[in-house]
């Protein structure tokens, strides 16, 4: 029982990180119709920048957090402006391949700029252990779950009530009509990339806080794939919840079936889900008529 609870809680914590990155995927998919294969790399860059800030400028938690958020926004905006905007109007295959190219560039750039050794991100908090009903939990783990939940609420409110959120939904639903109604698609795209980059970057920073930074971190993006597919590529909230589910499944599979299963539990799960509901659990069914 103790073991199960421990697995569940650490599953929730890692799942919240997957959820944040998966929300990054979903935000971009929802407003531009693209799967951003560079999401894992963007997550990783933000985490590395946070680490650089913490070691060279200040280890203060507020400074690091603001720096990371700013870096995430800038990264998203730059990528949108330099790489993605010229591809506007090109076929989806071409644009998605561009994100793959981008992923390759970012990944090697990280290895080139920073070194290939693992580092711990230390901001003076998040590593202390508190006991909840006899189970040791790190404060960072609680913080990431809380962050995910509050971001879920904020994004739900954003899409529901704010003018920009409604504009994003309109561009996603039908970009031509949205353009005719006077919505600037480029601004929507830029906002989506910046938002996605920040949300995923927060996930990356939390990952660095609880585990370690290493060049293998881009795999977080691959791990978050199952989460966003499970929730539905176009469902931002669903993706966040999908992350929690994948995290728990992975940890349970790892705890009871062996470490090999842990690596592929998520992927095995999405293959099954895609066979039953190809649009995810919360995604919208695409209806094609001839």
């Amino acid at each position, binding site marked *: 029982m103790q073991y199960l609870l421990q697995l569940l809680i650490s599953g929730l914590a890692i799942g919240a990180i997957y959820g944040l990155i998966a929300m990054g995927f979903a935000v971009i998919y929802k407003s531009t119709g693209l799967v951003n294969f560079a999401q894992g790399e963007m997550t990783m860059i933000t985490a590395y920048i946070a680490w650089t800030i913490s070691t060279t400028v200040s280890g203060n938690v507020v400074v690091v957090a603001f720096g990371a958020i700013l870096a995430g926004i800038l990264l998203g905006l730059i990528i949108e402006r330099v790489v993605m905007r010229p*591809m506007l109007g090109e076929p989806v295959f071409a644009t998605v391949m561009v994100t793959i190219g981008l992923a390759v560039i970012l990944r090697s750039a990280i290895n080139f700029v920073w070194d290939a050794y693992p580092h711990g991100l230390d901001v003076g908090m998040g590593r202390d252990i508190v006991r909840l009903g006899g189970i040791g939990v790190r404060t960072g783990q609680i913080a990431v779950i809380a962050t995910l939940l509050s971001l879920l609420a904020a994004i739900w409110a954003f899409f529901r009530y704010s003018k920009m959120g409604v504009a994003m939904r309109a561009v996603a639903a039908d970009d031509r009509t949205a353009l005719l109604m006077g919505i600037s698609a480029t601004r929507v795209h830029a906002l989506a990339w910046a938002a996605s980059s920040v949300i995923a970057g927060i996930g990356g920073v939390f990952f660095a806080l609880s585990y370690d930074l290493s060049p293998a971190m881009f795999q977080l993006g691959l791990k978050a794939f199952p989460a966003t597919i499970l929730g539905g590529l176009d469902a931002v909230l669903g993706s966040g919840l999908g992350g929690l589910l994948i995290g728990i499944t992975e940890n349970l599979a790892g705890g009871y079936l062996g470490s090999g299963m842990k690596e592929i539990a998520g992927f095995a799960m999405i293959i099954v889900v*895609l066979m039953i509901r190809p649009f995810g659990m919360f995604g919208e069914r695409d209806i094609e008529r001839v």
Partner: protein
Amino acid sequence: MRTGDYKQTYGELVALIDSPPVWLWSAVLMLALIAAPYLLNAYALSFLMIILITVTGALGLNILTGYTGLISLGHVGFLVTGAYAYAILVSKYHMPPLVGFLGAGLVPALASLVVGAPSLRLKGLYLAITTLAFSFIINTVILEMRWLTNGARGISVQRPEMLGISFESDAAFTYLCLGVAMLTLLATLNIRRSRVGRAFVAIRDNDTAARVMGINLHAYKLLAFVTSAFITGLAGALYGIYLSFVSVEGFPFLLSIEALAILIVGGLGSALGAVLGTVLIVLLPEATRLVFSLFSAQLDAVFTTGAQELKSMLYGLVIILFLRFQPRGLVGAWHDIRRAWVNWPLRY
């Protein structure tokens, strides 16, 4: 003056080679390739081997992604399956290498049915993600099935001896790769002009229309998967022999990206494109290194220390630049140049 490319009979349209100069150039290239192992030094020869093996794999992926329009991000899964099938059959169970090659084709083909069948309902990005998932699952399965695959330790593979011919030397092995690459090229060119190939292209261009025309989408998509996996598996076996060692690390995920990069750079859906793309992508790092070393020793040093990173950065950059400025790839560029040459001084 030749004003265009006119085809008057159906036979001309589906001819393998439609003009005499192409016959000539193909023959010259063939002779050059046959002479190459005796003229090149060992370093250059290793590039030729890699190009021939990669061409085989790229042609395999071209059937699935280029002809049929099904994006696969997990082709390295078929490559590694083929390599392991060969290594297990030949090194572990001491089967003749020919049986090994047959297995290297058939095992990935069977595996492709396992991926292909659930993928039939999926399109575009979702399919890409399923194939990606497949390649990760395959890696884990290989690592877990230690009794068969030696897990992370890998299997060493010898150069084969088939039909009384030893392929031990580099020159002989190059001929083997050349033979396989040529057969694959002929096979994919012939598939493209057959009924099956036209069905593939119809599915790529508009699957709804293809279905209305009476093409069985499921059967043809599976067929594309199986053919593609078979050829890719053969390339995997050759690559394993080239490395003389088969392990999961020998087949990194980047190979899948590299294969797609080759197709994009060459020109999607064209066999010639796959060949041109391979030559460019394989030689690109080497060419860049040469250019760098011309400029200064310092740049050369940067390149040597960060070679792997710079190499993959180049892949990424090349993919993006081609998609942005020449989406039809080298083949498209070649067509443009030819048209400009023929029509000069008119634009078209």
